[in-house]
């Protein structure tokens, strides 16, 4: 071989033929592969030095991969008192969304978090959570999370940069900027209440006096803050005390779901929905789309969101009459026009409010313009709400401009070429900034773009540096609750991918001496709180820092002249946060994607929600037909979901979909509703709509189109009141056990002698009146019980796996403006006379000694007879090996038929496996599964009780995951044999009934009938005609 002869100068030693030939390609490869070593490698004499370098770097790489905190490298020689192998421990931390924190208690098993619960010491959690908090576990273990620092320079992507390279870049780059006082440096960050971040911001400002900081959130409460500024002269934060409110009026507000304090509000709201001494709260809603909160209203009026400004003035005029307000305020003067709402409704509402002065509250949603908020604040003041049902604290960061103004100014500056370095701490502005700003284009004007993010997302893709952000479960931090209560966030696990927090990165950029999150947090704490180490430890353990809530402020009304907001357009388009994806940040969370929307029951999609009457006018007869929405210059084709009770000429567009680089789960799911949001129409916009043609199959877990029929619809209307029983408060007062008389059946006799359960007799009670239908029980159950996600195609064929589902029924004519909604959680009811057990040929489902209907997975052969014979249809079958990774083709795209040869049954990655609870069997293919009443939790307590020789298990010791998560405390679990247990009392409640009891299955789960509390308008108004 001639090339091997030494006829030309080449290296004496070579590692490959390419190297020997010393081609330009090889040189290139060398440069790319070992940029720092390229010089060394090309000097043949220093092979020894090369080996030294490689050895050292390997050693160092090993060290950096070491996952133990460097502070504690000495292994314990004795077992720490709180560490028992196999026994999980719990740590308090906090979850922050849009600048408001909620306390959490996280279960950690052998050093890995496996389950999130609310922190019962935290005033805004009280032990409860919402879906986003529950799903954070899956996000932590998401293999699509960004794992490395990435540099993208002039189309060259170097995806394997190390942090030290990034650090070196930062120190060099920002040292240079420091000399120029940061005049061309901008920072864009998310809304956060973290005092550490605020402290670091101050330090940053000191280091870079001319740099600018911007804050942006796509879903913002700015309008509410602005409204408070109008009403009080200074922005005050309103705190609702729904537990004291007899009458609640919601104006386009979804305060039970998307409000930052929703978990607490749901609890307070639900508390007043339980009749006590024949009293419960009354809830009025005026809204465009049907929010989950609105679906619970006693009087729900569908009204175009742009009309609410008129409506609230109408209400104000009426109230001024009722309350004899003498001087007509300035803001009442304009807008004499009337809304489309029947005036009698407003009259009776005003009358009801006036009759409940001091015991009522008006809540306005964040989509409404500031003046509606301001007017509502005035009305609340007229109604003596402040101090009773509403209190105020100062709004933190009050001088901040609105988020839209922030991002607009930033983009203007970028376009003007006045930004050389842009640091983005979190967020995904390329995706969620107002579409007309064309953030991506502006970003190209910035030479150095740094993005810290949990995912290598749309924004990261356009940045010169992307750095992985630490998940909140793996990082130190602090955050404030809605009322200012400070929480310390402590890591549950060392960062899986060496991520850093925004605070840490800001410290690094600032050049602060401390860039360690732990030390920063503790330093902030020491500044804020007087106290020694024990206070710190106590705060960590409790999850809250005592007495850090803001002081209540008194509000004085200020006059204002309202700006005239005008959203003209044939149609109103309303942008709402999605109940699963929120603003898109949770798009790659498969649990959330598969959690059915509480109202539409859609999974893995968003849709344009419109009223069935409008749909009919547009020529739409089936969900999924597409319409073309035009807002200004922008158009979008979206499939339609006909939502009964939706306001006319209004379209609700949930945001957070059509992500392009969300990850394997979220990519390409849903429609780009955010692309219609402009600076002037971030919440509500005028639009024109026409039928676009085209069809996109929307997949829900209920109301499948193909099974719809006239007989079916008729039968459904006939039987829903037997299943999810409801009545009015008046009916309840006159006939307390009305629910028991909805269905009459002959005496239920058994063929054989039934077993008596004289030990424990576990049972459950679900209060339909308290249930708000949010679905967090489904998600908590999924997290607790290792329930797999099956993907859109499998949901389409009805194979979703949720052990507890929320049945949602509409009542009344679909096209009527005011349909009623019932939410009914259904899980296995643990029939004592279980029809499933009888038919299983291999006795794989049997009763245990406490009367639990248990599934023996090992014995199950999968005949599915049990599921067929289950009248509640709560059994779930593993049609495939469902514990697949996100690479599963069926979880990605709809339209891929499940055959042939498409059934990759990928194993979970090691990281994904960490999310599974070790206390619950991971079920394989071909096995039936269902709710166990969280038998692992029951047995943990029973074992403890036995070991410690308790006389009995105290009521409330055992809480299934669903009951624990429920913000409304609608689910109660306990021992029916304990005469003092809460569940026993609820089973004996007047409202209690057993669904399908006539089948003689003896369910252990009782439902408590739903009550509505409509105003008796005949007696309140002079006008006789009823409007309901």
């Amino acid at each position, binding site marked *: 071989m001639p090339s091997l002869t030494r006829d030309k100068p080449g290296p004496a030693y070579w590692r490959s033929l390419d190297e020997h030939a010393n081609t330009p390609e090889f040189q290139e490869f060398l440069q790319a592969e070992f940029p720092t070593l390229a010089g060394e490698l090309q000097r043949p004499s220093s092979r020894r030095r090369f080996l030294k370098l490689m050895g050292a770097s390997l050693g160092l790489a090993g060290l950096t991969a070491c996952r133990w905190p460097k502070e504690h490298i000495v292994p314990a020689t004795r077992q720490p008192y709180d560490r028992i192998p196999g026994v999980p421990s719990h740590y308090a931390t906090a979850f922050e969304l849009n600048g408001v924190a909620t306390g959490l208690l996280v279960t950690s098993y052998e050093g890995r978090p496996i389950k999130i619960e609310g922190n019962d010491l935290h005033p805004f959690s009280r032990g409860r959570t919402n879906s986003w908090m529950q799903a954070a576990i899956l996000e932590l273990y998401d293999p699509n999370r960004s794992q490395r620092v990435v540099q993208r320079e002039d189309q060259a992507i170097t995806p394997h940069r190390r942090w030290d390279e990034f650090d070196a870049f930062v120190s060099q780059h920002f040292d240079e900027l420091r000399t120029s006082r940061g005049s061309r440096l901008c920072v864009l960050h998310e809304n956060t209440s973290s005092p550490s971040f605020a402290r670091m911001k101050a330090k940053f400002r000191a280091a870079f006096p001319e740099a600018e900081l911007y804050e942006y959130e796509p879903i913002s409460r700015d309008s509410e803050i602005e409204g408070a500024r109008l009403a009080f002269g200074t922005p005050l934060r309103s705190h609702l005390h729904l537990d004291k409110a007899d009458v609640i009026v919601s104006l386009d507000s979804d305060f039970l779901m998307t409000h930052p304090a929703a978990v607490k509000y749901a609890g307070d709201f639900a508390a007043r929905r339980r009749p006590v001494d024949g009293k419960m709260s009354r809830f009025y809603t005026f809204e465009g789309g049907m929010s989950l909160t609105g679906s619970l209203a006693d009087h729900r009026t569908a009204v175009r969101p742009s009309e609410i400004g008129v409506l609230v003035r109408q209400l104000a005029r009426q109230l001024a009459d009722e309350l004899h307000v003498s001087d007509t305020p300035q803001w009442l003067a304009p807008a004499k026009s009337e809304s489309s709402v029947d005036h009698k409704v407003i009259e009776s509402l005003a009358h009801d409010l006036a009759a409940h002065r001091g015991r009522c509250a008006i809540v306005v949603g964040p989509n409404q313009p500031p003046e509606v908020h301001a007017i509502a604040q005035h009305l609340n003041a007229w109604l003596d709400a402040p101090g009773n049902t509403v209190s105020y604290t100062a709004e933190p960061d009050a001088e901040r401009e609105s988020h839209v103004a922030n991002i607009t100014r930033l983009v203007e500056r970028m376009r003007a070429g006045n930004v050389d370095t842009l640091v983005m701490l979190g967020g995904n502005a390329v995706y969620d900034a107002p579409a007309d700003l064309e953030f991506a284009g502006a970003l190209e004007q910035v030479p150095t773009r740094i993005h810290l993010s949990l995912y290598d997302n749309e924004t990261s893709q356009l940045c010169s540096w992307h750095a992985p952000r630490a998940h909140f479960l793996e990082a130190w931090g602090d955050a404030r609750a809605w009322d200012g209560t400070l929480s310390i966030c402590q890591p549950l696990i060392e960062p899986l991918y060496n991520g850093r927090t925004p605070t840490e990165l800001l410290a690094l950029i600032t050049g602060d001496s401390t860039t360690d999150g732990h030390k920063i947090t503790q330093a902030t704490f020491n500044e804020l709180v007087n106290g020694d180490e024990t206070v710190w430890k106590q705060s960590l353990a409790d999850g809250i820092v005592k007495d850090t809530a803001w002081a209540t402020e008194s509000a004085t009304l200020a006059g204002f002249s309202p700006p005239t907001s005008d959203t003209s357009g044939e149609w109103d388009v309303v942008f709402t946060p999605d109940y699963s994806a929120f603003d898109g940040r949770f798009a790659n969370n498969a649990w959330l994607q598969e959690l059915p929307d509480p109202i539409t029951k859609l999974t893995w999609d968003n849709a344009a929600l419109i009223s069935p009457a409008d749909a009919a006018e547009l020529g739409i007869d089936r969900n999924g037909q597409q319409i073309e929405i035009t807002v200004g210059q922008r158009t979008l084709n979206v499939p339609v979901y006909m939502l009964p009770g939706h306001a006319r000429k209004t379209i609700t567009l949930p945001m957070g979909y059509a992500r392009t680089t969300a990850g394997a789960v979220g990519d390409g799911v849903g429609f780009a509703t955010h692309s219609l949001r402009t600076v002037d129409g971030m919440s509500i916009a005028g639009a024109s709509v026409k039928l676009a043609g085209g069809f996109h199959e929307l997949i829900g877990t209920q109301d499948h189109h193909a099974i719809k029929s006239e007989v079916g619809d008729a039968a459904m209307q006939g039987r829903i009141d037997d299943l999810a029983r409801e009545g009015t408060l008046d009916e309840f007062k006159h006939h307390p056990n009305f629910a028991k008389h909805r269905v009459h059946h002959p005496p239920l006799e058994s063929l054989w002698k039934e077993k008596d359960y004289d030990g424990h007799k576990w049972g459950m009670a679900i209060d339909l009146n308290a249930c708000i239908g949010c679905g967090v029980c489904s998600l908590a159950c999924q997290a607790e019980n290792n329930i797999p996600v099956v993907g859109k195609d499998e949901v389409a064929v009805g194979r979703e796996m949720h052990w507890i*589902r929320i049945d949602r029924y509409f009542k009344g004519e679909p096209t009527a403006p005011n349909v009623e909604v019932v939410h009914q959680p259904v899980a296995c009811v643990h029939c004592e006379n279980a*029809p499933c057990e009888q038919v299983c040929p291999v006795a794989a489902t049997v009763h245990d000694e406490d009367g639990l209907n248990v599934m023996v997975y090992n014995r199950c052969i999968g005949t599915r007879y049990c*599921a067929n014979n289950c*009248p509640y*249809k709560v059994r779930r*079958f593993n049609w495939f090996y469902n514990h697949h990774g996100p690479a599963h083709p069926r979880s990605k795209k709809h339209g891929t038929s499940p055959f042939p040869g498409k059934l990759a049954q990928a194993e979970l990655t090691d990281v994904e496996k960490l999310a599974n609870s070790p206390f619950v069997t991971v079920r394989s293919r071909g096995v039936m599964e269902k709710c166990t009443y969280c038998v692992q939790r029951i047995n943990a307590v029973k074992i403890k009780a036995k070991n410690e020789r308790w006389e009995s298990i105290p009521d409330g010791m055992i809480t299934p995951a669903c009951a624990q998560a429920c913000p409304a405390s609608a689910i109660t679990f306990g021992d029916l044999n304990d005469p003092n247990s809460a569940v026993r009392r609820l089973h004996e409640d007047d409202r209690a009934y057993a669904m*399908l009891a006539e089948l003689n299955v003896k369910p252990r789960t009782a439902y408590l009938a739903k009550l509505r509390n409509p105003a008796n308008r005949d007696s309140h108004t002079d006008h006789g005609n009823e409007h309901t």
Partner: protein
Amino acid sequence: MASVPNEIDNTWNRPGERAPLITGGHDFTSLTDVACGPAETYRPPRAWYIAFTISVVLLAILGASIGYLIINGVGVWGVNNPTGWGFAIINFVFWVGIGHAGTLISAILFLFRQKWRTSINRFAEAMTIFAVMCAGIFPGIHVGRIWVTYWMGPLPNQMAMWPNFRSPLLWDVFAVGTYATVSLLFWYVGMIPDLATFRDRSKNKIRRFIYGLFAMGWTGSSRHWHRFERAYLILAALATPLVLSVHSVVSFDFAVSQLPGWHTTIFPPYFVAGAIFGGFAMVVTLALPAREMFGLKNIITLRHLENCCKIILLTGTIVGYAYLMEFFISWYGGNQYESFIFRARALGPYAWAYWTMITCNVLAPQLFWFKWCRTNLWVMFIVVMMVNVGMWFERFVIVVTSLSQDFLPSSWHYYVPTAIDWLTLAGSFGLFFTMFLLFCRFLPMVAMAEVKTVMPHADAHAHVPASRSFDYNPDDFEPEQEQK
């Protein structure tokens, strides 16, 4: 297929005179020649080859789709959350039902001294065996964990677990198991004299050895005949209750559960009637081409076919009555879930399936009130094909409509079978026809020994005109040693 004029019409009924059951002037020898023909010829008719090729391809599809199922899981079918059972159980009930006609013909008609059964009983029994084979596949493969299906059997095991004797699925295991065993035994025992004929007519050693092995040393001695007749009678008596019990037990799978539309007491008789109905349709479906293909028109005569049609008419009407009665009871019972499911069957999303069923099962057989329809082979063929389809749809309607729309409307979900479902169904026909065509080729498809007893020659007074009684009484009758 031949048209009517080519047939010898023996469907007449004249007072005092019996129509001949075997036409074409056959004597014992010529009958033996004709009946043995298909098995002895070197070259079966081309139609047999075509049919066999198609059947084997379908059989291969069955194997492939079952393999695919086992590799991937039951999810490859269209079954879903409310509808836990789909094609597999439909096919199971369908095939078990098919089998019933064979047993009815061979056992009950034997006990009732229905002489015309002799021409068709052998292949009807074979049909039973093969149908039960097809049926047996489905409960086995429809479970989630196929590798532990055997847990349904009462086998001693390390878990010290018995199956759950309260489960109708377990009753199925026993019922179908018993049925398969008795049917196989009955079929085989009845075949022994004919196998001996085959043995004796064999022209090569292999055939002689194999047929000889299965003929179990039959010599045709009086003692053999005597034992044979006794055994046959006993087996017929054993098989008779099975005709009623098996499909009753299969119907318990549905009737014992509490699903609206399943939980009805009419199911056992209705299922049995339906099974016989569907089974006879399948007998005619098989007989029409077989008699053409193998020249058996004088043995399986028009009269036989007409008799089958009469039974189809009777059982079809019973089935129609059952459909009607279900509706009446669902209204009369006043149970909202029950009444809904029947309204939904007729008017709901599966109305297409329901009306297919009614058309095929109730309306089509009514044509058989007319003798012209009972004796026209084409009409007959179309009607029995419709009945085959209709009986499959009956099971579809029962299984799918009830499951997909039960108590809680939130769970309702439409059932859509996948391609694998259809291929498995088609494949099961492949198995059935492959077995049947092999049977036609290698085993005596006409029960020669029995047919001969109903021929005039069997009578001691053979010279007496055919109007004499042909009554066959084993006790006073010694059959001739017809072949040596």
